[in-house]
């Protein structure tokens, strides 16, 4: 049975004379949470893997107690760190032997699929509009974005590769990569509007 603790109790116990018991209790809570959340996502050695994650998370939590702002329950904050630790590692394992170039080269098989041209539901006028728009967006991407922005957009937005893994290979971090892509999206949006094209109208036309 784990003792009920307030946020203040947790902070005090984890750093005081009851630290050993408090760490054991927190460990148990995090294990229970991660085990349940990852059961459907990890096929082999769940218990072993989860224990590893929780051990790493505990170290991180104890080293960062001073950053807890008390805006949620302490255990919610701790779970947040445990999930982040677990997913950083899971993504790293999943992608570990794949290089940036292999990411860029991957899934390129259908790149030239002329979906617009073979779409039988659209009228010839629509086909022309779509073809023109495709060419326009392609030109914007080629001319307005930097090489790094293009690579990031391609891997994250188009291919859906985790940002953390793309960031690692581009020698940056997830936050900076998000900013890089954000700047690219802003630039494309501005360019469309300057050229008299409303992005939301275009989208609704294509989503029909």
């Amino acid at each position, binding site marked *: 049975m784990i003792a009920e603790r307030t946020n203040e109790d947790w902070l005090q116990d984890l750093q005081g004379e009851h630290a050993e018991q408090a760490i054991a209790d927190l460990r148990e*809570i995090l294990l*229970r*949470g*991660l*085990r*349940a*959340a*990852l059961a459907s*996502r990890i096929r082999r050695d769940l218990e072993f893997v989860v224990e590893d994650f929780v051990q790493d998370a505990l170290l991180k939590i104890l080293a960062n107690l001073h950053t807890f702002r008390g*805006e*949620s*329950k302490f*255990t*919610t*904050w701790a*779970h*947040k760190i*445990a*999930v*982040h630790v*677990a*997913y950083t590692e899971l*993504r790293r394992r999943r992608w570990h032997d794949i290089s940036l170039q292999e990411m860029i080269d991957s899934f390129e098989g*259908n*790149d*030239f*699929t002329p*979906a*617009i041209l073979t*779409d039988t539901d659209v009228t010839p006028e629509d086909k022309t509009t*779509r073809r023109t*728009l*495709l060419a326009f*967006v*392609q030109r914007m*991407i080629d001319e307005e974005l930097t090489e790094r922005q293009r690579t990031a*957009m391609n891997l*994250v*937005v*188009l291919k*859906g590769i*985790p*940002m*953390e893994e793309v960031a690692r290979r581009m020698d940056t971090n*997830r*936050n900076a990569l*998000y*900013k890089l892509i*954000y700047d690219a*999206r*802003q630039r*494309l*949006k501005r360019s*469309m509007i300057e050229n008299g094209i409303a*992005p*939301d109208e*275009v*989208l609704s036309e*294509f*989503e029909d």
Partner: protein
Amino acid sequence: MLDLTKLKKIIRSIVATRDDEIGCADCFRELDRFVELVLDGKNADEALPLVRHHLDLCGDCREEYEVLIEAIRATV
């Protein structure tokens, strides 16, 4: 080269772009608060709209958010 599917993805991401977006670090800082609002049945999207918007756009953060909800549900 772009095809229709890719074009839609790009346009969707452009349409979703707003001036006041937050990054992954800010989202992570607020995530525990956001999750508790969700679990309490409160309107988290309204209380923390920039977190919701970031979660809609960022696959990594969204994935961690979903797992976090499950982890906490399993322990209460």
